[in-house]
């Protein structure tokens, strides 16, 4: 990736982090109030974000030959299987315990919300455990095959 490309990735992250903060998503209390059905505002955050993204993902590849600083537009891919849905169920349990999901765990640091460091550390360890677990399952499968 060129320097300009990396700078524009930084700019994208800044917009994302600013939006998360402006929408008060870096306050776990607000997220928990949504999950306890006291304030449905989070639906507007996800809806607004997804709508803008939908327009970009649908039209940019049709209207532009290539991105500004890269050769091709990627495609989002997800498969409907037990891993995706089981993982989502587990993710929701964690999100419901803390009110913190990956974006806010990172962005919260910029706003001086230091306790979020605990969540951030937890997420790194959770992702590590997932990688070790999947890696081990694959090794066992290869060994028995």
């Amino acid at each position: 990736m060129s320097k300009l490309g990396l700078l524009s990735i930084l700019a994208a992250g800044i917009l994302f982090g600013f939006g998360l903060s402006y929408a008060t998503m870096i306050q776990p209390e607000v997220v928990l109030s949504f999950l306890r059905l006291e304030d449905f505002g989070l639906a507007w955050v996800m809806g607004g974000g997804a709508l803008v993204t939908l327009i970009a993902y649908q039209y940019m590849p049709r209207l532009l030959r290539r991105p500004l600083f890269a050769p091709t537009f990627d495609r989002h891919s997800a498969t409907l299987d037990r891993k995706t849905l089981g993982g989502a169920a587990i993710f929701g349990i964690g999100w419901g315990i803390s009110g913190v999901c990956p974006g806010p765990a990172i962005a919260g640091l910029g706003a001086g919300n230091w306790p979020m460091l605990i969540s951030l550390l937890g997420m790194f360890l959770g992702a590590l455990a997932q990688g070790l677990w999947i890696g081990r399952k694959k090794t066992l499968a290869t060994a028995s095959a």
Partner: protein
Amino acid sequence: MIETLFPLGIAHYLLGGLCIGAGVSWLYYSTGLIGGMSSVFTSTWSFVIDLPFFQQSRFVNSRNWRLVYAAGLILGALIWMLSFGEPFRTSVSWWQLGLGGFVAGFGARQSGGCTSGHGICGLGSLQLPSLAAVLTFLTTAIVTATLVQLIGGV
């Protein structure tokens, strides 16, 4: 009705959401990359862990830009604090933050996406699996958050 569903109003939620969408769209426009937030938690381990799982090309090739993207996230929140906001400390207890973070990190990586990966990028791609993932994690999160409150969590 509106006041009951949205006691704090909707303007800041919607504007913040549009801004998040603008960030994800700018990332796509300038680099063609799909920018969910949970992959960085796996790809960063590839710097230090030599196991085949972490050394997959999708992690090694994306680990640098994902860290830059994450740094932008922190900067964006800092700019917000200096312009509109004030420092905010959560009062959610440490066991909730730590345990919740661990479980959410494990689950998001197992699922291949989180609130941004499935919720914003996946729905924005009209991906049915992502819609199913969103409905699944909303359900378990609502049940869990309610139970945690019952046992005395924040």
